[in-house]
């Protein structure tokens, strides 16, 4: 028994040592602030007003460089989406969705002549990309390729917390850090700055370089619901919107999960009762 206990104690001690070891070796980016999102937790839901504000930030700021090619306009009117309205269960009929789609032009082939044409988008179309191809995108962005935003909130460790931290986290580079042309210092960006750092080698600044300049400005977007458009507010809203874009079925998933859990717990309880009854007179 004593031996068993000592093994358990040793294991626990080892685990505690690992847990306590800070992941703050030189060069690692800062940990993004954990934000209390409306969609967190088992009963989380998107805040529709926030998604609408976030869409506006995406539309007016991000979409000039970032594509979102996996999302269709009709998705905006799907259940859980920013412009869902229960009067329009088929999101293709949703007038807000139709109006938004009409603002965009998409490429098509004229069915009469076969010529390449441009036409206003419909709700069935996907969001058109700002650049025709990767080379064009790089040419316009100093060699950097703005990542597609459809899945961004799932494609980065930290998700929406990380996106919020990046767009609000720009800092003036510390003295001794050589920032190249077209580069910006961001302590939340993954990277290793040791090669650009002329200061104390034990204290390389956290983070990395990012080609995107600080995208959000105070009051840069006017929210239709009167919310004050601080940089933090815009960052929160666009991060929430991008989480929706990456995981549009999040609400449906969590709601289904709740029903499944209740079912499974009752089912397990019933089986346990049967087990007790069946084994009642049998030793084991």
């Amino acid at each position: 028994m004593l031996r068993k206990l000592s093994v358990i104690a040793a294991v626990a001690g080892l685990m505690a040592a690992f847990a306590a070891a800070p992941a703050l070796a030189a060069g690692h980016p800062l940990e993004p602030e954990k934000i209390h999102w409306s969609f967190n937790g088992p009963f989380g839901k998107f805040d529709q007003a926030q998604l609408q504000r976030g869409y506006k930030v995406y539309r007016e700021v991000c979409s000039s460089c970032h594509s979102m090619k996996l999302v269709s306009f009709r998705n905006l009117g799907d259940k859980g989406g920013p412009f869902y309205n229960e009067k329009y269960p088929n999101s293709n009929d949703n007038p807000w969705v139709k109006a938004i789609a009409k603002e965009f032009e998409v490429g098509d082939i004229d069915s009469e002549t076969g010529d390449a044409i441009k036409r206003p988008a419909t709700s069935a179309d996907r969001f058109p990309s700002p650049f025709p191809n990767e080379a064009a995108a790089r040419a316009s962005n100093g060699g950097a390729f703005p990542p597609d935003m459809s899945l961004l909130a799932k494609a980065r460790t930290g998700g929406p917390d990380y996106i919020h931290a990046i767009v609000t986290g720009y800092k003036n580079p510390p003295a001794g850090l050589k920032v190249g042309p077209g580069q910006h210092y961001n302590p939340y960006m993954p990277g290793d700055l040791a090669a650009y750092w002329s200061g104390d080698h034990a204290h390389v600044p956290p983070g990395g370089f990012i080609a995107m300049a600080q995208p959000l400005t105070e009051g840069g977007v006017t929210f239709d619901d009167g919310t004050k458009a601080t940089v933090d507010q815009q960052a929160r809203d666009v991060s929430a919107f991008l989480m929706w874009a990456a995981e549009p079925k999040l609400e449906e998933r969590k709601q289904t999960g709740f029903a499944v859990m209740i079912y499974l717990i009752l089912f397990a309880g019933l089986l346990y009762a049967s087990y007790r009854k069946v084994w009642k007179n049998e030793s084991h």
Partner: protein
Amino acid sequence: MSGHSTYQPKTGFERWLDARLPIVRLGYDSFVDYPTPRNLNYWWTFGGILSLCLASQLITGIILVMHYTPSADHAFASVEHIMRDVNYGWLIRYMHANGASMFFIAVYVHMLRGLYYGSYKAPREVLWILGCVIYLLMMATAFMGYVLPWGQMSFHGAVVITNLFGALPIVGPSITTWLWGGFAVDNATLNRFFSLHYLLPFMIAGVVILHIWALHVVGQNNPTGVEPKSKADTLPFTPYATVKDGFAMSVFLILFATFVFYLPNALGHADNYVEANPLVTPAHIVPEWYFLPFYAILRAVPDKLMGVLAMFGAIACLFALPWLDTSKVRSMRYRPTAKLYFIIFVVACCILGLCGAKLPDDPVLGHFKTFTLGDADLNSFVWLSRFASLYYFAFFLVILPVLGLVEKTLPVPDSIASPALSHPAAAPAEATAAPEMKG
């Protein structure tokens, strides 16, 4: 355990069928009347849980294939099409992706149970080896399945793993080219992985049938490791084992559902939501969690070929296990020293898993800058993984063979029923009727 059948056809149709294809008899003998040791604990429910996992993976997988496009240009988008446009596609895909992890959780518990209770010992060697074959097929299937979404981790994981074969002398490069179907991981690779990912699960199902067949020939082991001697030692499979397995399965499903509905991406890697790009290598390529211990063994060895051999050797040890363990006592319940080494083995495997997920040169204890010995920084994950790998191999190749010859074991009970009937909850060591020392 395959005694003579007690199946009695009841209806005219059953009698007619029984004379032509005794399939109902087979089912009855295997899953109703089949005698199971009465003292099986919950560790024995994972066989049933694993069949549930296999069935779930097959069903969700077949549905996914209806919507998936195996092409380097369309695979990533087709997975997102499943997630966004297919009715309940998100549920099917999350069940399949997390189902793989659940399958491995269950198989690791199942294997450790076998290891602890000596379920690989005579006459169950073939049963154990068939299980190892299933595990090997599972690893191949899981690896190829992870490549199919064609994300960054899929692609670069495939590059790293296929390149391992390149370490073999002379034939290595030809083998990798043959595996790739070209000179790099590309469309041809994706298509053959897709084909094999569809084939291997059915091979698993086939070996599972052999595994169950072998099980029904030699009978189940049990926590005492003593073979059932009389009818008092066993109970019919139905309802006793079925209801217990059913309860365990439903509890396991609660864990499964927690991941599917609330943590669907917790076991995955964010980089796999970025489409594969051969020109951009992720900063940190890591396999799925269930491969991490082997990945750590691979990286623990400085030489590539030796690392690959060590990794495959780690799996080969499992196949040889029935002949490596020399103990005459089957269950570690009566082998206190072996039990201690077993616990350390489990901890070593967990440490290897942790090391596999970390950068090799990162410090284990951040508070201490270095702990150098010669030119080796012992406070690094690569050194931790070296110590843990050493223990992994020592456990199979030194501890189990030697310990069986020298250890002092506790008295083993005469039969399952005698201690179980007289002291249902008591420790078996005290409950033995006729103590006998083995060693």
